[in-house]
């Protein structure tokens, strides 16, 4: 037998081409080092609980009760669980047919979708239709479902920010489509310039690509910027003029660390703009329980909301969702809890507020410590993390370092990040995994290590960076840029 179906050369080429840096070379090396006994600080994935963030108590109580509904009849249940958690567990179980153990509607439990719609209405001031909200196993699955509906072949392009979260590049290559990059402007605080967008679309069209959709990540991953209302308006207008579906990745909407630009949803901006655009622009917005002060990554809960998608296309998306039967039910209930947390007057309200505030305030402090730390380092510049969970400093690598990287057969920022890992145990993701302008190098870290560890981590980074720059820099001055 010469050639087997899953020999490497016989593999689907879309699979081979797909790249997912967040769990790539650096991560694998870090895991190896960890096995060898080295202490590794994983800042490669936005995975708060893995770095010690404690789950909020109330949702965990409700889920535990839903898992073990026989407790609800136990006279002693009140000794361990507060009354509002018990009531909420009953509330969610009554929405299901068969509790956590039964497949739900493929779009998610109708009652939960209704609560999501009410949350969206409270947030945006415009009503939302539960029929157009689909619950998913985390936002990633939702993005994949929607891109699958959009991409027909390599002639179809999707506008994706660069730097971007590699879910987009990976999924587009798995589906055999074409990524059309638009560059965020680092010197303008990772702003989004509509002229750049136009250029990107024009270039793609010139190459014969049908540009069909545009993804925005707000707050930005890995770039941490919060888009302004004016900027969002430009994007909406642009998508309308160019006939693109707008994909709004808004999973970090709770993670805001400044007060000038609070989160505003693409949907609200669209609705504010009035007719005809609010009735026509196709928009899909994504959310998750993995981020925010919840950080419940392991639950795989999320949703997407469709705006102005024709009913027949919605049906098709439903059909594809139905092949996966249903999203996991505990994750759906987490989503229900997230959009409808304890209210003033509830027994658990105070605790819930205390816990969630503590998480957010600490993240805000960490965002500052990290940005300031990076900016105090030689040849490092870093925009402030306005939102999300990441810091994305630019590392101005001296020519000698770039040469050394080439000799080692590494991309320069991979070279730098590997050295950083070996020297300090800090596991980051090189900027090349997210895309960046040519000749410019970055790395991404999360801002998630515990607040008390942060000063030591930044000191250790600074020490490494000083030594690295000392080793590779000519003393004639800074490298280019």
């Amino acid at each position, binding site marked *: 037998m010469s*050639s*087997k*179906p*899953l020999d*490497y050369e*016989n*593999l*689907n*080429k*879309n*699979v081979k081409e*797909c790249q*997912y840096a967040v769990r790539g070379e650096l991560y694998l090396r870090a895991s190896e080092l960890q096995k060898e006994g080295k202490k590794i600080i994983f800042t490669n*994935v936005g*995975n708060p*609980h*893995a770095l*010690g963030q404690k*789950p909020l108590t109330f949702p965990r109580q409700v*889920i535990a009760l839903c*898992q*073990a509904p026989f407790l609800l009849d136990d006279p002693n249940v009140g000794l*361990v669980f507060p009354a509002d958690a018990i009531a909420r567990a009953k509330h969610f179980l009554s929405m299901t047919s*068969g*509790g956590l*153990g*039964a*497949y739900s509607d493929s779009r998610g439990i109708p009652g939960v979708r209704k609560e999501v719609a009410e949350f969206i209405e409270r947030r945006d001031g415009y009503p939302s239709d539960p029929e157009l909200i689909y619950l998913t*196993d*985390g936002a*990633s*699955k939702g993005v*994949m479902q929607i891109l699958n509906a*959009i*991409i*027909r072949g390599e002639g179809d392009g999707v506008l994706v920010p660069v730097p971007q979260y590699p*879910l987009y590049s*990976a999924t587009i290559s*798995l589906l055999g489509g074409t990524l059309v990059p638009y560059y965020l402007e680092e010197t303008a605080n990772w702003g989004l310039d509509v002229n750049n967008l136009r250029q990107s679309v024009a270039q793609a069209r010139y190459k014969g690509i049908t540009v*069909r959709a545009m993804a925005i990540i707000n707050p930005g991953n890995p770039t941490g910027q919060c888009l302004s209302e004016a900027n969002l308006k430009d994007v909406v207008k642009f998508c309308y003029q160019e*006939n693109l579906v707008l994909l709004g990745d808004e999973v970090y909407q709770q993670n805001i660390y400044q007060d000038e630009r609070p989160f505003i949803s693409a949907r609200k901006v669209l609705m504010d703009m009035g007719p005809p655009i609010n009735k026509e622009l*196709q928009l899909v917005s994504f959310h998750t329980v993995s981020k925010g002060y919840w950080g419940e*990554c*392991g*639950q*795989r809960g999320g949703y997407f909301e469709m705006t102005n998608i*024709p*009913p*027949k*296309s919605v049906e*098709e*998306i439903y*059909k*594809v969702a139905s*092949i*996966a*039967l249903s999203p*996991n039910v*505990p*994750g759906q209930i987490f989503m229900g809890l997230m959009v409808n947390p304890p209210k003033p007057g509830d027994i658990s309200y105070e605790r819930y507020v205390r816990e969630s505030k503590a998480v957010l305030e600490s993240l805000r402090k960490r965002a500052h410590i990290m940005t300031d730390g990076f900016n105090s380092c030689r040849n490092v510049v870093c925009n402030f993390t306005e939102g999300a969970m990441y810091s994305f400093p630019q590392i101005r690598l001296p020519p000698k370092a770039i040469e050394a990287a080439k000799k080692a057969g590494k991309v320069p920022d991979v070279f730098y990040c590997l050295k950083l890992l070996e020297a300090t145990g800090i596991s980051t993701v090189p900027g090349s995994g997210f895309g960046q302008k040519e000749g410019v190098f970055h790395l991404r870290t999360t801002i998630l290590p515990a607040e008390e560890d942060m000063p030591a981590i930044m000191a250790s980074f600074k020490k490494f960076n000083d030594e690295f720059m000392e080793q590779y820099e000519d003393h004639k001055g800074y490298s280019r840029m």
Partner: protein
Amino acid sequence: MRRFVADKTRNLVRRASTCSPTCPVSPRPHHPPSLLSQPTSPPFSSSSPSHPSSITSPLRFLTAAALHPLSFPASPNSMASNYSTTPVTLQSVNPKVLKCEYAVRGEIVTLAQKLEQDLKQNPDSHPFDEIIYCNIGNPQSLGQQPITFFREVLALCDHPAILDRSETQGLFSADAIERAFQILDQIPGRATGAYSHSQGIKGLRETIAAGIAERDGFPADPNDIFLTDGASPAVHMMMQLLIRSEKDGILCPIPQYPLYSASIALHGGTLVPYYLDEATGWGLEISELKKQLETAKSNGVCVRALVVINPGNPTGQVLAEDNQCEIVEFCKNEGLVLLADEVYQENIYVPDKQFHSFKKVSRSMGYGEKNISLVSFQSVSKGYYGECGKRGGYMEVTGFSPEIREQIYKVASVNLCSNISGQILASLVMNPPKVGDESYESYTGEKDGILSSLAKRAKTLEDALNSLEGVTCNRAEGAMYLFPRIDLPHKAIKAAEAAKTAPDAFYARRLLDATGVVVVPGSGFGQVPGTWHFRCTILPQEDKIPAIVSRLTEFHKKFMDEFRD
């Protein structure tokens, strides 16, 4: 609209030209005409037998358009025209999405949901007081209770803060508390809210591997296990790896579970059907596999894998060990990946049959890593546990090179990881309480109760179906379904044609309207052309079965009275 028509025409022409050699009109004079002499003809025919079409045929596309007024724009005045210039319309949605079908949640189910709403508003609106969903293997939605021990452990893992409290001991069994501690200790930082390794938590994979080794008597490697959100995403992942274009084919049983046809369509490959022999209890003949493989090859299709569902869905047969040996030998000789859907491994209802995993069979034949590429799928949704809502499952991947393993890992990592609760549950079903554990007795009591009740229900329904005029039904040796064949009278077939629907869909719809019982027409699974079936789960609670039997019997009698030739 004009562009749509032009595109569609071009599409059809292209498809017609690529598939015409596979379209089975070519006569085979040396074969006597029997059911099995036409297996290359349409397995998924939803049209009348006089208009055969196949999953790859352009005709089917048109038939589907006629059948689903909801999903295709009927006229330029339809609602879709409001959206005609937007980027995602039915005309411009990915055609692979349009093409795939998943009957288990199709038209009949949508109608059932509507009837259920009617009943809520007015309990007298229909001649029955509730909808009984026999369309889907979703046991807990029909009242099956979860296994207490599993749920205790899951609850504790979801809320570890109470593990140390003394009150907790009054609410949970001691071994559940102990197991929760064990599991949490396997999770870095005890963080059940964190993404795990993309293959799943290492410690849980070790538990699962140990469970497989105990089941098979052959070792299993935790690095071969990929935990997934139910078995379906695992199947998708393998299709994604295998299918490069429509020239790549996957051998699938007919009748089959439509996850396979749907996921092959979504990934743009070709389903190569092989027919199970209804007359021999849905037997799987190697000669049939060979024949279909050769036919596909001669049509330029590169066949890459064989799907075997054991116990069978929708057909309920359990493969005999020597039959499995032949299948393994066939895959080895032909260089095919064996995709073994073994999600019903705990659902066996007859004393003369036993489940044997393909891993065990191939290892007992002396075939190891280097000889056969095998993927075995398992799920927490089936068995006696029936925990569908958890979306837990795994695949055990053996006989692949490290570089392929890396590629599978990469694809898994794009989705980060499967849900943790489902991962924990997968480890529990592969390592349930043992003799001597505090929960052992309640666990075996619950498990045996569920399995013996399922066996009884299967038998009662099978007997009832076999007593109906023109209905024959093989026994459900395993899994959760019966798949009776109905000899529909010509008059019924004519009536179905007039209603522009497949005859078995027509029957299923009438059944729903009259009794509230939801079944899935056989055309959703594929069947020998000209035969008609439906799939019915054996999952309604035992006390409901007599009523279902009498309603079904009464309906069938009336139906035959109306249409008997």
